[in-house]
């Protein structure tokens, strides 16, 4: 889930923080620049791990700030394909699920990567919201009062990362579209052991009874 990345960056230290010791000032500047931002191909920057070297300290003519070339390591969040992650349900609509990790919200499970067969039960009077139900087992069970395998956000969901894409920044956006997501993770729960955690506890208990 997390990787260390070695970055080199030329940093301009604004004059108002020059009273701090150099490494503290540089660390706070780096944090303002990188924290909680997505770098393409690298992932979401979580933290500055350490500073390897600080070089420079030149002052360019006409500028009141000093410029440093810093080499440092960042902790980035970049799941690899095939990784299994536990997340909470954020939204569920006809096109699939949207999960959240607290610090990262753009995780989508499109309808075709839900366990087959699944069906969507829309909540009446809402535009698009509803819940997904997995029709596992024979038809009689599916028709019973309370289906066994519902995705309703009451417990965390395990999913497997299918792909991580970094869409490029759009030039213009129409008014009502979703805010731009610089990093989108697509996941799947179409496999044994994936999906809400409570589904598989039941499976275990059934085995025990046998």
């Amino acid at each position, binding site marked *: 889930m997390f*990787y260390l990345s070695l970055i080199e960056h030329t940093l301009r230290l604004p004059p108002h923080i020059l009273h701090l010791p150099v490494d503290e000032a540089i660390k706070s500047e780096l944090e303002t620049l990188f*924290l909680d931002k997505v770098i393409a191909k690298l992932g979401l920057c979580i*933290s500055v791990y350490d500073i390897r070297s600080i070089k420079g300290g030149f002052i360019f003519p006409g500028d009141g700030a000093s410029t440093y070339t810093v080499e440092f390591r960042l902790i980035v969040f970049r799941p*690899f394909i095939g990784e*299994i992650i536990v997340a909470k349900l954020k939204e569920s609509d006809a096109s699939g699920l949207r999960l959240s990790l607290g610090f990262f919200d753009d995780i989508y499970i499109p309808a075709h990567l839900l366990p087959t067969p699944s069906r969507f039960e829309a909540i009446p009077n809402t535009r698009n919201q509803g819940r997904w139900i997995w029709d596992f087992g024979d038809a009689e069970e599916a028709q019973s009062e309370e289906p066994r395998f519902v995705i309703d956000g009451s*417990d965390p969901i395990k999913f497997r990362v299918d792909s991580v894409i970094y869409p490029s920044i759009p030039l213009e956006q129409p008014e009502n579209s979703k805010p731009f997501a610089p990093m989108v993770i697509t996941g799947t729960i179409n496999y044994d052991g994936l999906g809400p955690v*409570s589904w598989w*506890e039941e499976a275990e208990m059934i085995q025990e009874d046998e």
Partner: protein
Amino acid sequence: MKIKEANAGALTNFEVLGFLRTRGASKDPTRVIVPIAPSEFKVYDYLVESAACNQTKEHVKEFLERCKSYKLAKAEVLNIINLRPSALVEIDPIIEESEKRFGEQLEELVNLVVEVLPEPPTQKLPEPESNEVKEDTMDGKNMDEDKMETVTVEQIDKDQIEPNEDGEQIVVS
């Protein structure tokens, strides 16, 4: 900005959690004072609820030593340490071609995980004020999962207790 090495090393959740803790992150509300950004706190909150929060360096080292004989891929070891699967069905999506490579040995691997790595934190008991009966049953089941040695008899007892809990809650609320 130049990326010198995009991948200077993979980190387990446990290592990131340890790093945030050394900088002063904790659960209690002294959050404004410590030099940690709100976005880092969100990561901390996520990690503290995962299986990583009880792990120590010794646990991880011991697990790495003992799983060498299974010849797991680096990604699989990382997944196992992060998730701490306690059942066959949990370890199945982690390992590719589990039947071909392991077959019987898979159960040994699960037992090794359960033995070496500590349990994830148990779910909190349901609050008496909550009205959601369904939520309570779910939490009860989660507690069973964390106890691990799920004996059938214990299961029946738990099920019998749950209706009583609900009864008590109705009285209280």
